[in-house]
């Protein structure tokens, strides 16, 4: 078995790379695939926190590279889903502790007995980015509908296109706020796709549930009711090759929201 190595990157920080990695990884594992998440943000690791695995980490990727442990020992199994494993970054080191070749080697070993290896890339275009990208054959570029994030995403896409090993680069638009788009205060999905000119793999609505899920260490895909969770599940399905229509973000989901929506429409009529 040879799994797919997908790097999740963005250029800009704070757009949701780590949240995306945690959620797509969890969603794929829930569908029965074996997934390894690699946190390459050495010194600023977060992925373990989002998965609620911080207290289980004994060895990190640096320990593997410096041969203080075997690769298998460093993989931390998820609390709920044994299909999902995490290779944590070292918190007490920096990006220079590993190099691109070493990371590629680890990816190559991991893809032998896993369906997916998702690499969570650090912000920036320096060594950390080069390391994360080294072993990947696909990339998901995360961006938000803001000019600065799009500018950085554009730069990243340019860099990814120079890498021969990367055959597919897809866009994930995060923190979309339909009401702002409607009032012309936010760039629309079409605008962003128009600028970046790469295929879209997902649109994730802004969801306050993300904050609580991050704090609890529980990816939002596990929440059946959350809209963002549903959107991430759809992304996972698209990665698996299925045709899934994009969510209609205009339609509020909950009963109360529908009611509120109805009332606001009434008011407009009045």
């Amino acid at each position: 078995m040879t799994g797919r190595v997908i790097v999740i990157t963005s250029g800009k920080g704070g757009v949701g790379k780590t949240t995306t990695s945690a959620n797509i990884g969890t969603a794929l594992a829930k569908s029965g695939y074996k997934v390894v998440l690699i946190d390459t943000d050495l010194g600023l690791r977060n992925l373990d926190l989002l998965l609620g695995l911080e207290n289980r980490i004994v060895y990190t990727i640096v320990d593997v590279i410096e041969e203080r442990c075997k690769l298998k020992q460093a993989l931390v199994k998820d609390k709920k889903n044994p299909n999902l494993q995490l290779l944590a970054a070292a918190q007490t080191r920096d990006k220079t502790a590993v190099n691109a070749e070493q990371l590629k080697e680890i990816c190559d070993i991991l893809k032998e007995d896993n369906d997916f290896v998702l690499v969570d890339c650090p912000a920036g275009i320096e060594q950390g980015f080069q390391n994360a990208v080294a072993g990947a054959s696909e990339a998901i570029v995360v961006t938000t509908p803001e000019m600065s994030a799009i500018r950085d995403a554009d730069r990243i896409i340019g860099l990814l296109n120079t890498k021969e090993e990367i055959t597919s680069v897809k866009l994930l638009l995060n923190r979309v706020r339909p009401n702002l788009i409607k009032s012309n205060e936010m760039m629309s999905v079409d605008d962003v796709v128009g600028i970046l000119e790469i295929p879209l793999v997902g649109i994730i609505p802004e969801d306050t549930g993300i904050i609580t899920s991050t704090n609890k260490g529980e990816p939002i895909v596990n929440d059946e009711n959350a809209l963002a969770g549903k959107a991430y599940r759809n992304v996972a399905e698209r990665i698996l090759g299925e045709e899934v229509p994009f969510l209609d973000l205009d339609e509020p989901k909950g009963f109360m929201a529908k009611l509120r929506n109805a009332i606001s429409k009434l008011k407009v009529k009045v």
Partner: protein
Amino acid sequence: MLMEKSEVENGFIIDLSNIQNTSQLVFELSSIMEHPEVKGKNICLKLGSIDLKQSQLLSIKALIESMDSSIAYIDTQSEQTEASVVSLGIIVGKVSDDMKADLSSSENGADESSYQQEAVIEKTENDSMTSEETEDKTVEVVAETELPSSSVETLEGIEDIYDEVSTEELSEVIPTENFETTAFGSLAASEGLLPAEEVSKYILLDTGNVLPEGVEENSVNTNSLPTLYLNQTLRSGQTVNYEGNILIIGDAHPGSEIVAGGDITVWGILGGIAHAGKNGNITSKVRALKLNAIQLRIAGLYARRNDTLNVPYVQKSDEFTPEEALIEDGKIVIYKKLRRD
């Protein structure tokens, strides 16, 4: 009882060698000290075979210092007194018999050294200096400190103290019997602490015993290890690694790592990883005002915090109950300090 000028500059000899009783000694000394001539002088105290404990000697020193005088040296025939004198950092001297004849010769003799010493190190340094300077004089201040010269040498390079000073040498500099450690120790072990939350709070990882190869379990007394004192907050990504005990005044944030050969004590919230007894010392302990370490490691045992306790942050409060983690029956157990309302 005798009172006369000494060879030490601005010095006075007080001879109490015939007194065998402590209260009489203090009485005699205080009556002498009240004499206006003795004020602001360097006192050379001549004692007989009377045995004085460190605490008694300390009160005598305080008495002399309350009159703006200081002790230049103490001449004694008792071994116990001599030991007390040394431990207080006072010079053991000999009052020479023929000093009266040489009163004038000491004019520029030992004027550079202030005879009020605070540390043993300084004392012996100055001592050797004075004995060199007064070599050709008939009066001699004989340095008779009990400290082996080797320990004095190591102490001179004070930065390297932890690397070079062995346990024996350290205990000679700071005589431990003068601190009543046993009283605190027994209190902590019996009535002061009670077991709490040891089942739910930390769960051993299934890594097994993860001592590196060649390292064996041991139970070295952590009292004998040197201690690193840090007055700062440890932030994410910062590590402290030390062979002895570590004392941190401040919080250790999540993402930080404290690794010690002995005990770890955090006077604050411990939120990172704490590894006590890294060289296999199973008697090592981890203590904190709020023990919230993401992982606790003692010797080769690793335990993770229970998931239910994973909170984004710990709210600061003045209601913390200090906790202590240690190994019991192959498990890491937490003890909470008992509150007495």
